Structure formats: C-alpha cells, structure tokens
C-alpha cells in the first residue's frame, strides 16, 4: 500500500471501496491497530496512535463475520467492552447495554447465545457491542456481505440512520460500489494498494479522476475519448435539435432489466454504446439507425 492518505471528519460516514485485494481491509486493520504500518501514520483526534496496541485505541470494529463471542450471551457480548474499560458499576453497565440493544432493536434477546439468533440479529449485536463504547470512529469491515440481498438493503438504511442518531464517524469498507455511493458522505476508491480518488458520491460518480474509478463505480461508454454513463445517453430516431454531443449508431440488441432497458448500439466509428432508457421509450429494432445524444456536462475525461 502506498499514498493512502485521507481524513475522516467528526460524525462523517466515510466509505473505502475497491475490488477485493485492493488494501481496504488492511487500511482498516492499520487504523484498528491489528497491524502496524511500515511507514506512515494513523492520527486519531490529531494524535498519532503509532505503537498503541489495539486494546487502547478509541476505535471499534464491526467484523465481516461479526466475531461475536460464541460462549457469551448477547448482553454479555455487548457488555464485554464496557467491562474492559473499567466501567465497574454493574447497574450502569446493564443500563448502557440495554440502551445499546434498544438502539439496534434487539430488546428481549439479551440472554440468547449468538448461535440462537439470526444472521441479521448477529449483525445488530456486533453493532451494539461496538457502539456501546461510543468510539471516536466505528470501523465496519464489509458488515453487510454476509447477509442476503433483501436484509442487506434493510440494514443499509438502518446503518445510515444509526450513524445519524449516534453521531459517531463510520469508516465503512465495502467492495459494493452501490452500498458505498448510497450510504456515504464521502467515498475513497482504492485500487492495488493505491488511493485513486476521494470525494462525495456525486463527485466521484460524475467526475471520476481515473478510468478505474469511472469503471468501478458504474457502467461507462467510452466515446471519442470521453466517458458517458449509460443513463446520460438519450436515443431517438430523429436528429435532436442542437444537441451538445451526438453520434449516429445502429441498434444491436437490448437487455431487459426490469425497471429499465439497456439498449446496445454500435457507432459508425465501431465503438459500442449502452444507453439506459425507460421501458416505454424503447421500441427500437435491431439494425435500426438511431441518433445518440448527451449533454457535455455528463461527459468526463479522466
């Protein structure tokens, strides 16, 4: 890893996104203190945490497979950190555990063991176990990847609302660009141990600085050296009036995607273009000549 430098603001939802093996989990482990960097440093509240063992750092991690202690009940799992941090008063621990479990809607499951609850519930226990400590940063390592698709969408919303309610900075690691774009205040895209770009979701999606970022975050048509997202491309039979950018093409095929259709066409220079259009607007036949057009503002040149 090299040149991975970013700064997370207080109470910010920050995502690290990239394909597997890009170094995002390693970055997380460096911040948590499970690994030490060979060079460079981690600052927490402006102070270097170099050489500080993980158990002293004021950050907390939600692990990919939750890493709940299988021999402890839900309540004991959540209390584990409080007990370690010298919180002696039994009553106050119980109170804070109850509050944390309420926060993640797990009231009533206190005395269950991790294997007696569902995957989604385990996820919530892991969140409560970390949030109860009110860390400066909550590190989330692909926390949704072990859940099925439907639950994942639900938990996504819940994560966002938890983050807003607690005001704790979240550092969210994921390989799912949709997750990162929909949840984050800012996103950092990593590739092969390097940081490619940091910015707000609209920034990185609309103005990617590198070809990798452009392609990782969504589909791209590379037309005349510029990138255009499929949803920015319009298709019509007649020549539009004074388009900013336009090209003639031949329809090749279309893919039905439920909420929209991907229309594949070939430009006269041989390059391929995908346009995302609404079902009702799509009455084009393969072989038909069409006009593709888009706004200059929707183009990007990484």
């Amino acid at each position, binding site marked *: 890893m090299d040149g991975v430098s970013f700064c997370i603001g207080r109470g910010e939802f920050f995502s690290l996104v990239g394909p597997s093996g890009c170094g995002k989990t390693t970055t997380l482990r460096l911040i*948590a*203190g*499970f690994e030490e960097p060979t060079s460079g440093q981690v600052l927490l509240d402006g102070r270097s945490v170099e050489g500080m*063992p*993980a*158990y*002293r750092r004021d*950050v*907390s*991690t939600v*692990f*990919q*497979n939750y*890493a*709940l*202690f*299988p*021999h402890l009940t839900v309540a004991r799992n959540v209390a*584990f*950190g409080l007990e*370690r*941090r010298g919180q002696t008063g039994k009553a106050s621990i119980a109170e804070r555990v109850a509050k944390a479990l309420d926060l993640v809607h797990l009231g009533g499951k206190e005395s269950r063991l991790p294997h007696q609850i569902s995957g989604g519930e385990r996820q919530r226990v892991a969140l409560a*176990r*970390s949030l109860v*400590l009110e860390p400066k940063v909550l590190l989330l390592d692909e926390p949704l990847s072990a859940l099925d698709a439907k639950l994942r969408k639900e938990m996504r919303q819940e994560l966002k609302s938890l983050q807003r309610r607690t005001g704790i900075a979240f550092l969210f690691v994921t390989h799912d660009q949709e997750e990162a774009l929909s949840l984050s205040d800012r996103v950092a895209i990593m590739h092969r141990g390097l940081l490619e770009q940091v910015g707000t979701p609209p920034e990185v999606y609309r103005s990617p600085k590198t070809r990798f970022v452009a392609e990782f975050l969504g589909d791209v048509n590379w037309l005349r050296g510029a990138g255009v997202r499929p949803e920015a491309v319009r298709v019509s039979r007649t020549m539009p009036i004074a388009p900013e950018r336009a090209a003639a093409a031949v329809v090749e095929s279309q893919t039905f995607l439920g909420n929209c259709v991907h229309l594949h066409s070939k430009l006269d220079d041989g390059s391929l273009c995908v346009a995302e259009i609404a079902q009702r607007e799509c009455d084009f036949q393969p072989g038909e000549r069409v006009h593709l057009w888009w706004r200059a503002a929707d183009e990007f040149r990484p």
Partner: protein
Amino acid sequence: MKTPRTWFLAPGAFVMLSLFFLPLLIVLAYSFLSRGAYGGVLPPWTLESYARIFDPLYLAILWRSIWIAAVSTTLCLVLAFPLAFYIARAGARKTLLLNLVMLPFWTSFLIRTYAWMFLLRDTGLVNTLLLQSFHIVRSPLPLLFNTGAVILGLVYGYLPFMVLPLYATLEKLDPALLDAAADLGAPPTVAVWRIVVPLSRPGMIAGCLLVFIPCLGAYLTPDLMGGGKTVMIGNLIQNQFTSARDWPFGAAISLLLMALVLLVMRVLGNKGEELL
C-alpha cells in the same frame, strides 16, 4: 442391503467380545472368589476382597494414585496450553511442530523412561553437571526414586495426549475473536482468559481425560522412576497377581480402578457435553 454393512462390525465385535468382555467377566467372577494358596481362585463366593479395599493401607495407595494423577494432569494442562496455542497459530510450521510433539512416540516408553533414569540418578548427567561442572551442590540431589520423579515421568509421558486435543480445539478458534477482544479493550492476557480458555474447554476436558485415566492406572513409571517406593494402584494390582498371589483382591482393585475411570469420564464427559 443391510446385512453386508452389519458384517463389517463382525471382526471388531469378535475381538471386543473375546478379548475384552469375556476376560472382564472372568475378572468380575474372580473378584468374588477366595484366594488359592499358590495363586488362582477357589470357592466359596465372598465379598471379602471388596471389604479389604477399605483397609487404611490400601485407601492410602488409592488416594495417592488419585492425587498423583491429578497433579500430573494439571501440570500437563498448564504446560500444554501455551504450547498448543502457539502451534495453532504457527502458520506454515504447524505440521513440523506437531510432528515434534509426537516424535517421542518413535521409541518405546520403556526406553524413554530408562533414559530419564540415566539423567536423574545420583551419578546421572544432571547431578554430574550440578556437582562437578557448576559446583552448585555438595552432594547429589535426590532426583530419582521419589514421588516427584514419578510425577515428572507421567507429565513427560502423557504431555502429547494433552497437547493434541487442545491443539485441535485451538486451531478451530476464529482468530477474529482475538482481534475482537483486543478491539473491545481486552489486553492479550484478558483475551486469552476470557475468550480462548472458555472456548477451548472441550479440548481441555478431552486432554484431561486422556491424561488422567492412564496416569491413574500407571504402572511402569511409579515402578521405575519411583523405585517401587511410590506405590500406585497399578503397582498394587500387579503385586496381587504376582508376589502376593491374591488374585481375587487383584481383580477387585482392577474393577475399582475401572469404576473410578468411568466415574471421571461421566463427570467430565457430561460437563463437556453441556458446553458443546
């Protein structure tokens, strides 16, 4: 199609029946008979052999066997736990280290016990070094032919039986759990005590059974390393069938030993199941 598979049981069943259950029945019968003058057994049926177990002399031997086995098992556990923990996280060297743990099995236990005796006797390597090379002591230390030597021999002999089951449970332990413990503020010692130890209970119980049971019935080690001075149940049984020529009593204590073993297995085994 059921018969062929059932037949696979036959060889094992035959061996167990003819070489285990039948002899056991013979032992059971002998224990209720009277002793013959030159060994062997005679009628009439009696409970006398069982009554004799309560003789303070024999109760002392029984008690000694139990505490020596208990101390040896505890020492094995204390020594094996860090070792197994280390091996479980040793990565590519795991296989090598496990093979080293099992290396002693390449030679006979008897030979290894003799080797210990050569090391520990008054003119052995340890005492020679202490006396002549380092001048730490004036007279040889009594390292052999006492209870301490017996415990040393047992711990040495049965340590691998503790290491292997512990290794098996520790190896399955998710390393993320230790990260999680550290993450929640537990220093390594606390993480081991609160997370690793409770989760390796099944391995500990299996290891303790595998060590305690043979230690309780140990015969060779107390005989050689204890020099016949530290008599344990195993030696007592051997004595009854040879020099004492009291087969019924020997049979009775054999069954008592078996009962003890079953009791320990029952107690520890139940605990193990609860935790699983």
